[in-house]
């Protein structure tokens, strides 16, 4: 359905996106994962025909959108990261405005507004001005606007940033339902690993403008199949213990976050013995040592040396 061919966007000497290759098939939910500044929004702007790539092409049904973006624009709905609404207007007025620019009017538009308000759970707040809405309600309306014209392909750029868990789960359920019930193709970008794990069939991981991993959830986790991810908690962490772990040649990666140390070691190593020895030598009292099934977060940590939300 949609293909990105060696897509790059360069600003002077800086590559926001570099040689990106990607495809999206009809009816699937594809995740685009990466920390802030990874280049996700730039990639989305290029594939939705909003900005011109410096190099490469975007093909929609095998035809370049650079010369003629209209066929793609007719079928996409974009949920931008920002709240792209008129805050001084009511929810209904916003939907009415965006419906009008999609050439809808009269009964058809009124019906569609009702449907969308029901879908996003804002029927009771339809007459309220958007600026009085909570963050979660604004996000829901932001999604609703993108659904007004019955798009076939929905691009969602971090649609759950800065909202409460309840609204977040409502949005995730809605996205899942749209895909399952209406067959909507969705490109979902996020830096929340668990959202992408929950929603997406295939995942692209980006960092610093480059794609660093591609595949299904299992494919990506397979990257860590030869290694154990171990979380170590200690009573009073000290630098000697951390340095000892970092200097130990059999440990591939060591990350410290809050009071937890995450280490990645080859499966053949007897890790408990090793950690206990190092803890004794540095006089650290261990609280727990857990071997975890690798998550996408661990993969990202392994690939980039940084946590997703750093």
């Amino acid at each position, binding site marked *: 359905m949609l293909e990105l061919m060696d897509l790059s966007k360069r600003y002077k000497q800086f590559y926001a996106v570099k040689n990106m290759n990607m495809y999206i098939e009809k009816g699937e939910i594809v995740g685009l994962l990466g920390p802030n500044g990874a280049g996700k929004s730039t990639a989305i*702007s290029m594939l*939705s*025909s*909003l*900005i*011109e790539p410096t190099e490469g092409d975007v093909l929609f049904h095998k035809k370049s*959108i*650079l010369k003629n*973006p209209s066929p793609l*624009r*007719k079928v*996409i709905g*974009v949920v*931008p*990261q*920002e*709240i*792209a*609404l*008129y805050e*001084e*207007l009511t929810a209904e*007025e916003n939907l009415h*405005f*965006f419906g*009008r*620019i*999609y*050439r809808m009017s009269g009964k058809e538009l009124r019906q569609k507004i009702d449907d969308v308000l029901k879908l996003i759970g804002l029927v009771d707040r339809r007459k309220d*001005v958007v600026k009085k809405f909570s963050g979660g309600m604004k996000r829901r309306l932001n999604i609703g*606007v*993108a659904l007004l*014209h019955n798009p076939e392909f929905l691009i969602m750029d971090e649609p759950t940033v800065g909202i409460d868990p309840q609204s977040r789960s409502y949005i995730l359920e809605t996205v899942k339902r749209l895909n399952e019930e209406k067959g909507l193709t969705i490109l979902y970008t996020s830096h929340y690993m668990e959202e992408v794990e929950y929603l997406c069939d295939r995942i692209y991981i980006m960092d610093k403008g480059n794609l660093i991993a591609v595949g299904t959830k299992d494919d990506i986790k397979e990257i860590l199949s030869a290694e154990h991810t171990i979380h170590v908690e200690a009573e009073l962490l000290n630098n000697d213990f951390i340095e000892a772990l970092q200097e130990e040649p059999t440990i591939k990666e060591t990350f410290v976050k809050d009071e937890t140390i995450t280490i990645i070691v080859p499966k053949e190593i007897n890790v408990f013995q090793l950690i206990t020895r190092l803890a004794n030598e540095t006089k650290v009292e261990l609280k727990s040592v857990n071997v975890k099934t690798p998550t996408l977060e661990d993969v990202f940590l392994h690939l980039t040396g940084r946590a997703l939300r750093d």
Partner: protein
Amino acid sequence: MTGIFLTKIKWLLRNPWTFLLMTVFSIGFAFIVGGFNSFDKIKVPTYVEEKSMQEMDVVQLIEKQGIFVFEWMSYEEMEEKIISGKSEFGLHLYEDDFQIIVGIDSPNINIVEQSVTNAYRKDRQIDQLASGILESKQAILHEITEEPIFKTESTSFYGNDTFVYDSNLHSVYGFTLFFVVYTIAYSVFQILIEKRSGVWDRMILSPIRKWEMYVANFLYSFLIGYSQILAVFLVFRFIIKVDFHGTFLQALLVMIPYVLAIVALSILITGAVRTTQQYNAVIPIVTISMAMIGGAFWPLEIVESKFMLLLSKIVPITYGMEALNGVTLYGYSFEQTLFPISILLLMSVIMTGVGIHLMEKRFIS
């Protein structure tokens, strides 16, 4: 297009504050600076030997001129004010003569001297007339000041270097043209906000055509700017009773190309800046410097610097003021008015073109 336009109107109705504030500022500043109130008229410490002399005919004639107001006091008080520097000069009125006591030399002395001399001259003429006929001097005075026998209309011609200046009208025009730049600029500013929030991108992805987006925005900004000028002129014409020298409608008409040029200038700035913060920083600088260079605050005729005069040639306010002064004070013919109008229209076309080009650089057409 209608959808965008109506949404903007709805937005304006919920956020009318910039529009209202700028309209009030235009009226307020023009009213105060233009001398429509008595507070800023020259107050002249004046002494007469007897209190009854304050009712002299010549005093009434001076008051009618409205150039300065008397501040009656004793001779000692007047002297004290002048010596202490609180007043630049004082006036001693006699029945058929006057004396100006000067403390500090000031251009106001000439204005007051001329006004008082004229009043005494007129008073003598009335005396001579009254002595020859039966009507009382008071009746003639009333007729001359309140009900002139002949209603005259005059047509004037001016040489190239003639400078006609009406301080009241200059303030009305200057401040209206100045403050409307803010109103228009902040209405065009909505484009930047829409770009930042993503609403603009949503419109680009919709079936609406680009020209419809621009026309709707242009039309909205034009209407809001023109409505402000209309409101200010109407207040001065019908409430403050400024007669615009009988050219009220012409003055309103020549404002059309000016408003177009200011909308175009705002679009150019919108295209040139990258952020709303930059826009907010640029607008006051551009507006104030344009008003100073273009003669909104003072007549360009008193500017001597050739460089500043050269700069004024690229500023829309210069041509807005020229068109207004032309039709109102100089009695410009249609052909003469066409010159500033053409320049403003040319500016509108060029600035809109460049502004839209800059805005579009980022997008796939």
